[in-house]
């Protein structure tokens, strides 16, 4: 299990970004959720998106997977995909965007009528048309890797939240994306199950996967991310290395948010 491009630069952050977002805007009715978001993610980098509920962080993630269509702005994935949302989005472009990223959902969204293995191989076989035996072997290896080899023939309702989310991660990995997107991957989990999922994500980052993670787990963001982006009210308030944004925030709103999450009482 490793990122699709083995020739990843040794130092994340150097050269052209793998993923770049510029001037992203999105409104739902009168409510402006994103007001010009800029973001850069380099190959092998882990970016944590943090911020209060309603800050727009999940919407950014959903725009990156084509689940929402921004009203304006640009998203580029190196080397060959550049979308300008000022113009109507073509189906082909949305497909290309989805092809390059894969998402892990807060509520797992596993397919309940399929077994664990079927959940994982569905996309690679039906959509990417890769050969079944290769895909199944790869899926079994990935499941084993997250400690779920014995669950391959179980249905999602038989899994704990932590197991279901690890299947969600494997399903995303099986698509061989360039960027992994995590939407609050541990928020729906019982506290004692959070660790298993975070361990898997940490291992993926160590293996060099490029990831964007929306999370409320500040301690985890601090440990695993290379770059933290704090959003509030649809704008990026502050971004930088975790030690700076989480340890010594410059902006008032960031200070307040970090303080409240670290000392809830």
């Amino acid at each position, binding site marked *: 299990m490793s990122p699709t491009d083995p020739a990843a630069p040794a130092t994340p952050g150097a050269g052209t970004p793998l993923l770049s977002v510029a001037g992203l805007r999105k409104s739902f009715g009168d409510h402006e959720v994103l007001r010009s978001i800029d973001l850069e993610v380099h190959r092998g980098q882990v970016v944590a998106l943090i911020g209060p509920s309603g800050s727009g962080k999940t919407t950014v993630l959903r725009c990156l997977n084509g689940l929402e269509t921004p009203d304006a702005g640009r998203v580029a994935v190196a080397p060959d995909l550049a979308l300008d949302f000022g113009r109507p989005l073509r189906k082909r472009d949305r497909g290309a965007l989805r*092809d390059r990223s894969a998402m892990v959902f807060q509520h797992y969204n596993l397919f309940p009528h*399929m077994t664990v293995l079927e959940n994982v191989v569905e*996309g690679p076989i039906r959509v990417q048309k890769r050969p079944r035996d290769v895909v199944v072997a790869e899926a079994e290896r990935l499941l084993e890797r997250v400690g779920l080899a014995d669950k391959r023939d179980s249905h999602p309702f038989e899994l704990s939240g932590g197991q279901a989310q690890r299947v969600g991660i494997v399903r995303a990995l099986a698509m061989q994306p360039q960027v992994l997107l995590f939407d609050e991957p541990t928020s729906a989990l019982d506290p004692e199950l959070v660790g298993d999922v975070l361990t898997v994500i940490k291992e993926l980052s160590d293996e060099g996967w490029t990831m964007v993670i929306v999370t409320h787990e500040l301690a985890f963001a601090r440990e695993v991310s290379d770059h933290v982006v704090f959003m509030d009210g649809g704008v990026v308030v502050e971004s930088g290395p975790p030690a700076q944004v989480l340890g010594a925030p410059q902006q008032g709103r960031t200070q307040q948010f970090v303080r409240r999450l670290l000392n809830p009482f």
Partner: protein
Amino acid sequence: MDWDLVRSSLWPIVRGALTGTIPLSLASFALGLAIALVVALMRLSRIGLVSWVARVYVSLIRGTPLLVQLFVIFYGLPSVGITIDPWPSAILAFSLNVGGYAAEVIRAAIQSVPRGQWEAAHMIGMSHGLALRRVILPQAARVSVPPLSNTFISLVKDTSLASLILVTELFREAQQIAAFSQQFMTLYLEAAVVYWVVCLVLSSCQSVLERRLDRYVAH
């Protein structure tokens, strides 16, 4: 009760069920489901006109008696030059009727599948059609089995109306023997019992189907 008459009339009535009621129900239901799926998808379409056509269709079917629909097709159409035999007329009327009722069931079932399932399907790159086929409809099927079974059981009983357009089925057999023997109570009760047995069998089929489709759902 004239038990000799019951015994001698049982086979013609059961034969009417086997060669009339049951095949008529099965054919109309299969065709009706196909119509219903198309109408349900049209109803959910984002194109206003398409959705409107589907709504008008459902409204017409639900707002007019089945007997009237049957008579329009069999007795009405010939006056505009379209003559259809009894059997095809019956199948046409019943399947159009099932199509209207089942369309609403299927639409509701599709809408009952959580939005996250569409999103996960799109995330793995599925088109709308593929997501529908592989992810949404299998889950909607489970939800629609009980209401569709109701529709089917109603249909089985409604096929007795086909006797009025000269289709030989269970009820028409009973009617003819009743007219001949003048034993109305005996024959119509007998017909009722045969309908009831057919519906009992169908209800147990429903339970089996539900249990099969329940395999992947928590209890």
